[in-house]
């Protein structure tokens, strides 16, 4: 079942890295463990924090059904995760499911069956569901009087809750959220790297983070003085 789980780690504190005989290799802050959706707070294109409460209020204003739209790697899934946590804290979340295969459709319908009126179902990758499945899900949530919040790459007929866009500033702010950022800032990843990664990856934040991962790995090995 592709529901999101939030492993309650000790927040921004990294697991300690044991001293090594070959020099202490620091944890790469760009590893997927630390940058996966849900680990980083949602930011808008200008690099400002998005208030989940405001977005939930807007969702209700839109009638409970909306789409988070944007290109690949623009933070849709991250935002969906944060909103689903906020909905859960209010007791208004049905489930948060990532649509990857037909098996996930069963998970979706199971969730709808046990839902309460007024709650919201969050679905990631709405375009993965075929035309008929989308219609059936829509009908099911309507019958159950639930809301529907989805992410999609392409425009849909649903009202838009948030149009996700990326910018170099957004990437910079994301990097600043990563663990031990201040320790590494002056020695390994510079602002020019962030700009370069953003341009090289065509504005795709996810790919940019992969690119920064590679740069960090190379430099931490080539420059022993950066090891702690």
């Amino acid at each position, binding site marked *: 079942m592709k529901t999101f789980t939030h*492993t*309650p*780690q*000790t*927040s921004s*504190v990294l*697991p*300690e*890295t*044991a*001293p*090594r*005989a*070959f*020099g202490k*290799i620091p*944890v*790469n802050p760009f*590893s*997927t*463990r630390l940058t996966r959706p849900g680990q980083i707070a949602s930011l808008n294109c200008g690099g400002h924090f998005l208030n989940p409460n405001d977005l939930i209020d807007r969702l209700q204003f839109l009638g409970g059904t909306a789409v988070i739209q944007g290109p690949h790697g623009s933070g849709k899934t991250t935002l969906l995760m944060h909103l689903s946590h906020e909905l859960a804290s209010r007791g208004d979340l049905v489930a948060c499911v990532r649509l990857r295969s037909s098996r996930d459709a069963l998970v979706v319908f199971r969730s709808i069956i046990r839902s309460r009126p007024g709650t919201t179902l969050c679905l990631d990758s709405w375009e993965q569901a075929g035309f008929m499945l989308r219609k059936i899900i829509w009908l099911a949530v309507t019958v159950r009087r639930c809301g529907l919040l989805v992410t999609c790459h392409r425009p849909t007929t649903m009202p838009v809750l948030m149009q996700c866009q990326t910018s170099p500033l957004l990437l910079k702010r994301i990097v600043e959220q990563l663990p031990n950022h201040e320790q590494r800032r002056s020695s390994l990843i510079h602002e020019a790297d962030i700009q370069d990664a953003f341009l090289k990856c065509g504005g795709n934040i996810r790919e940019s983070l*992969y690119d920064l*991962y*590679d740069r960090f*790995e*190379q430099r931490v*090995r*080539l420059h022993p003085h950066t090891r702690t």
Partner: protein
Amino acid sequence: MSQSNQALVGSPTVSVHFDHSHRLYEPQARLTVRYSIDGIADDERVRAVELSVLWYTEGKGEEDLGVHFFERMTDRERLPPAVTVGSFVSSLPLSPLSYEGLIVKVRWCVRVRLFFTDGRDFVSEHVFELGEIPPAQTKPDGPAIVSV
């Protein structure tokens, strides 16, 4: 002895003591861990404590994990606030060894997870090393990366 602490303001603190210096262990070595739990508020009650020794992967792939040792304590006489210190021993396996690769890393750790009666849980993680595999190196012009 090697000690590691993890603390966050307003949250429990778990201290873990390893019996080997530098937390470096050989395969099939005996791992002895002493832990202590502090900082639990008076109005909070722990209903279970889980101790585990596991490896996990880190890097550019999905995180995988394998549990080598696991113990769950629910007996109130063995939980905080009655008991705030404890220890366990585990014989480490032959593999997988700790590895600092470029896109795949293998790390070993001890996890102490506290479950509270109000439904929340708190986890504390303390890394140690199994084996002495040196980090993978890169060439000056970078590794040959192929996306499949």
